[in-house]
């Protein structure tokens, strides 16, 4: 191995990992929504066999890491990754140079309505739309999409968690009072339904829009709303200082508003990020902690027109452990 002279900062932003093994790196393939076509997967395999050790890591955030790549092979790997980038429709300022950023983490999604009986919307499509909305970007933001309130994608550990909702539509003329919806809402969800005079009454405050009633209704008395709605939960995180779950922010939000609010978040970060942050990285949640939620909200809602059904939680309080304040 010859003399190595590598700009480590640049390497990281080019989606390569700084490895404990001297002279080696790992190529990180970001896969928005966690859906990759089989041809691209074949290319991942080829790269792993040609430049790596024949091993592929599946990451926590639905990406792929190909370890054991020589630092000197990065340019060649970038050239080969191009077809994958094209196929995944990743925004890229310059072709052939690999993934252009790595700060904002892969946008993840559960299988959603393409596959799952409970999915309330096409999570993959929304995740891909979000990817195009914000990438390339080096700011530390985590976004996750889940199809329904089961939250299989664990979006409450993300800065922006998007949970699918449907507003159940009731046609009383098709209801035979079999009570399937009532029983399943109680057993699988929150118990928002009751039988009153032979027809079902939905407690609209209690209802979380999971769609269990629709899924179990045998007569199509319950159907899904034409509009897809979302619960937006915000500022969940793991990590050393103050790990915590994301808290409810908006119920019955719409797609367009969510895209705009996330976009606005980046403008807010540019304004308030700590200029002395380690490696110029500061996690969005800690910036909000510093400026206060009210200031963040001001930026967030810039130019956003929430739909008439949206219910905004104006005061959000987070819990979690405060190791930085009270020790472990």
């Amino acid at each position: 191995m010859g003399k190595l002279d590598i700009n480590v900062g640049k390497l990281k932003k080019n989606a390569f990992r700084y490895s404990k093994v001297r002279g080696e790196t790992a190529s990180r393939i970001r896969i928005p929504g966690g859906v990759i076509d089989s041809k691209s997967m074949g290319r991942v395999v080829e790269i792993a066999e040609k430049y790596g050790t024949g091993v592929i890591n599946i990451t926590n955030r639905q990406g792929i890491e190909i370890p054991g790549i020589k630092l000197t092979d990065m340019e060649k790997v970038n050239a080969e990754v191009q077809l994958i980038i094209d196929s995944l429709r990743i925004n890229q300022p310059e072709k052939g140079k690999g993934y252009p950023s790595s700060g904002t983490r892969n946008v993840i999604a559960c299988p959603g309505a393409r596959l799952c009986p409970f999915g309330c919307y096409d999570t993959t499509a929304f995740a891909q739309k979000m990817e195009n909305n914000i990438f390339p970007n080096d700011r530390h933001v985590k976004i996750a999409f889940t199809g329904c309130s089961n939250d299989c994608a664990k979006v409450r550990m993300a800065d922006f968690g998007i949970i699918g909702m449907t507003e159940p539509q009731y046609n009383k003329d098709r209801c035979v009072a079999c009570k399937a919806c009532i029983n399943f809402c109680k057993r699988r969800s929150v118990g928002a339904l009751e039988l009153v005079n032979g027809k079902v009454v939905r407690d609209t405050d209690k209802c979380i829009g999971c769609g269990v009633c629709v899924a179990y209704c045998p007569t199509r008395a319950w159907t899904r709303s034409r509009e897809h709605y979302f619960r937006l939960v915000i500022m969940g995180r793991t990590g050393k200082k103050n790990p915590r779950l994301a808290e409810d922010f908006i119920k019955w939000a719409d797609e367009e508003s969510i895209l705009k609010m996330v976009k606005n978040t980046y403008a807010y970060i540019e304004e308030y990020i700590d200029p002395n942050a380690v490696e110029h990285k500061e996690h969005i949640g800690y910036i909000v902690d510093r400026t206060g939620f009210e200031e963040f909200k001001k930026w967030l809602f810039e130019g956003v027109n929430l739909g008439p059904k949206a219910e905004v939680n104006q005061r959000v309080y987070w819990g979690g452990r405060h190791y930085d304040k009270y020790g472990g």
Partner: protein
Amino acid sequence: MGYVLSREAFAAVIADLSKNYRIFAPVRKEGAGRFTDVDAVIYDYVCDSEKIELEAKSDYASKEFLTPLSETLLYFTENEVKESDLDTRPVLVFGRSCDINSLKRLDQIYLDNGLAKDPFYKRRRDLVKYVLIGCGHSYDNCFCVSMESNKCDDGYVFSIDLVEDNIQSNVPDKDFDKYFAQHCNDKKDVAPRYVKENEVKVAVPDSVPLSVITDALWDEYTTRCINCGRCNYVCPTCTCYTMQDVFYSDNGKVGERRRVGASCMVDGYTDVAGGGQYRRKNGERMRFKVLHKISDFKKRFGYHMCVGCGRCDDICPEYISFSNIIGKVYQASKEVK
């Protein structure tokens, strides 16, 4: 008389018809299925021919006009009772051969099963004429040929077959000729298409020995079936209902009596006073349903209740196949002999 119509001409016929008739037809309801962005084909009133689903088999049967899932029969207050109003305009129900064959079964139960005729059924029945949607091919799970309901020679006022983007109609009822004669593109003898062979074939036993009741074949359905009742609610021949007497909550002296669809698979169907329940296990309920459709009804009326439309198989969330069970009953019946 037979007619050939373009889509536009057919639209004009439907528009004319809807001046004199309410048209109750299968309609593709966007996103109304169980899952996100999945359609359901459900009966509804239409005025526009484009709304009528002529290609897919409907998820729910045409019986919903005659026996609505939920219908208020009468209102009561203190010493007075008033029958609910009914729109008395005549109705054209669009159905396939299985639907039209099911009509005989519905009439049997509601009009010719004992001394009394059901007046609430009859007042709807008197309004209805049927339109036959021909079947150019068999659909998933259909076994109408085995149940001899793949064809109907009468019982409809006109037929509709969508053949290469044209509508072909056979119009046996002379009263309807006028609608077609003025809009048609061509007159020629056409016969409604019907299915001559299904992929699913069943052999129905002539008689089911009593030993089948205790046969182990029902046991697996105790765990596989989730007693949701979908098979009953979509069935063109299921006729069971239950009653709801409801008192309006802001005035306990006023209320209404409703009739709603009932299912022999769903909890509560066999509840009796004192907390008794005749069929607790889902396997027992399945046995009751299957034997009613292919044995008990026949013992009383001389023909099978099931018309072989396969909608129960189409909709079962647990992939239970009714036609497959008929096969098992056939085997079990044969072994006894």
